[in-house]
């Protein structure tokens, strides 16, 4: 059950061009609404904008006796630009934790597939897997790579791909997923987050190798709680589901990738 809370910004760090990591004091929100890695926050971005901005949780937990949430976001428009100008000590009006995260079980062996700003939500999955996850991370170019150190520490293996080959191998995340599965397809599931074409590619690869795959989807969103039916995604069975309430994580097989 989501709650609304004024969360204090306790740490702020630039992690890439136009990309920021915020640590928010979470109070009772974590204990009351946490389901698993991959949930999101719906953050009010100033009084002159009607709609909140949905931002995935990167990590959460307890530090020095206080519950915290960390988010990583890219400045994409006016709302996120406003957000990037908040300073430590400011409070943010937050609805959270929203949605259902990745379905993960202790002891599971997970292949994480992240592209660009879709990488941060997978960090919670890496932490959950306690050092046993394998990650394939893709970025447009070396200068846009984020969270490399945290992933290196939290995962057994990390394979990097860039569109231009300026970091890791040249290619796409789906190429990396195929390369991993070629050698070893004994994974409990692939957990993927990133742009839709990337997710489609990863879902195809997962299908080819017969490995279960969960994808975290994005859609333009209004209420964030399932009331307005704005953030619809077409499912393979012809029905509509909603990123905020049914997702953001879906089984790759239930998504209509041709919609």
């Amino acid at each position, binding site marked *: *059950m*989501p*709650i*609304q809370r004024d969360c204090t910004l306790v740490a702020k760090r630039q992690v890439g061009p136009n990309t920021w990591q915020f640590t928010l004091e979470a109070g009772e929100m974590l204990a009351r609404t946490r389901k698993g890695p991959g949930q999101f926050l719906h953050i*009010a971005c100033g009084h*002159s*904008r*009607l*709609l*909140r901005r949905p931002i995935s949780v990167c990590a959460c937990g307890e530090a020095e006796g206080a519950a915290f949430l960390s988010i990583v976001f890219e400045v994409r428009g006016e*709302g996120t630009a406003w957000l990037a100008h908040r300073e430590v000590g400011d409070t943010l*009006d937050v*609805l959270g934790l929203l949605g259902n995260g990745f379905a993960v079980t202790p002891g599971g062996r997970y292949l994480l597939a992240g592209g660009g700003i879709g990488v941060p939500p997978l960090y919670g999955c890496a932490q959950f897997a306690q050092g046993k996850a394998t990650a394939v991370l893709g970025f447009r170019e070396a200068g846009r790579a984020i969270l490399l150190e945290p992933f290196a520490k939290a995962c057994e293996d990390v394979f990097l791909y860039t569109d231009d080959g300026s970091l890791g191998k040249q290619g796409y995340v789906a190429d990396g997923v195929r390369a991993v599965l070629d050698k070893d397809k004994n994974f409990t599931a692939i957990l993927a987050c990133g742009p839709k074409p990337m997710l489609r590619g990863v879902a195809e690869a997962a299908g080819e190798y017969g490995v279960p795959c969960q994808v975290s989807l994005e*859609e*333009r*969103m*209004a*209420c*964030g*709680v*399932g*009331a*307005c*039916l*704005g*953030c*619809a*995604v*077409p499912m393979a069975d*012809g*029905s*509509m589901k909603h990123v905020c*309430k049914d997702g953001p994580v879906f089984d790759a097989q239930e998504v209509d990738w041709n*919609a």
Partner: protein
Amino acid sequence: MPEVDLSVTLAGVRLKNPIVPVSGTFGFGEEYGQFFDLEALGGLCVKGLTLHPRNGNPPPRIAETPMGMLNSVGLQNPGVDAFIARELPRLQALDTAVIANISGNTPAEYGQMCEKLSQAGVDMIEVNVSCPNVKAGGLAYGTRPELCAEVTREAKAHAGRTPVMVKLSPNVTDIVTIAKSAADAGADALSLINTLRGMRIDPETRRPILRMNTGGLSGPAVLPVALRMVWEVHSAVDLPILGMGGVATARDAVEMLLAGATAVGMGSAIFADPMAPVKAVEGLENWCESHGIAAVRELTGGVKPWEN
């Protein structure tokens, strides 16, 4: 000072206060019921219903606009029968008025739905003749007076003793003409305004943001249009009005009442702040108290227009 009487009567239905979340912004109440007690509301308009289930429009369905938003949800709903079976019992157990919003492809469909909902015991039926996001029916019934009258008559003929409120579109040359056609055809109340048709374009891709190209504009940006239309209709038609469009605060609600509304709808403001309706009820009470208003219904139509 005695307590302020917040209750109002809309087409014979007593609301404990004038604040009502509007159709399409509040689902069937379940989601926002997680944030506050739904019994704090005067009533609630449920998500627009159709005779058969509808999947709605393809995404994207949402685009932000300056102090507002566009939507093209397209009446996604489980159908009137599923609503009556699965959602209504939970809502009827609450001490708040349940207003069912309906859209039909034909006048006969409006009649069929009214019969079902009246028998199921909803407190009021809101006849949507103004949805901009569906191809058949919808907006056409709200822009042509003779069609609006036909739908209203059909609804009234099948609604039994359940009051019928007709929801008007702002996408017309003269809203008073349509309002009169609904009134003459027997409507018990009017609700206005539905969303204004609008559009946004991504300059990089040259594609409209909405997959349906256009959608309905709501949010604080439309409040002045809504106030003007409520004022015009209240001045010309002797029916109670559920005034809606851009109301976000108690002060906005006071303006809406003064313009001529008997009750006040709130919609997109809830997306920004789930507690907005509760805050509006409290704020309305405080405003009345500080202005020596004993009963909120005294405000209806209380605007003092300049003589020109």
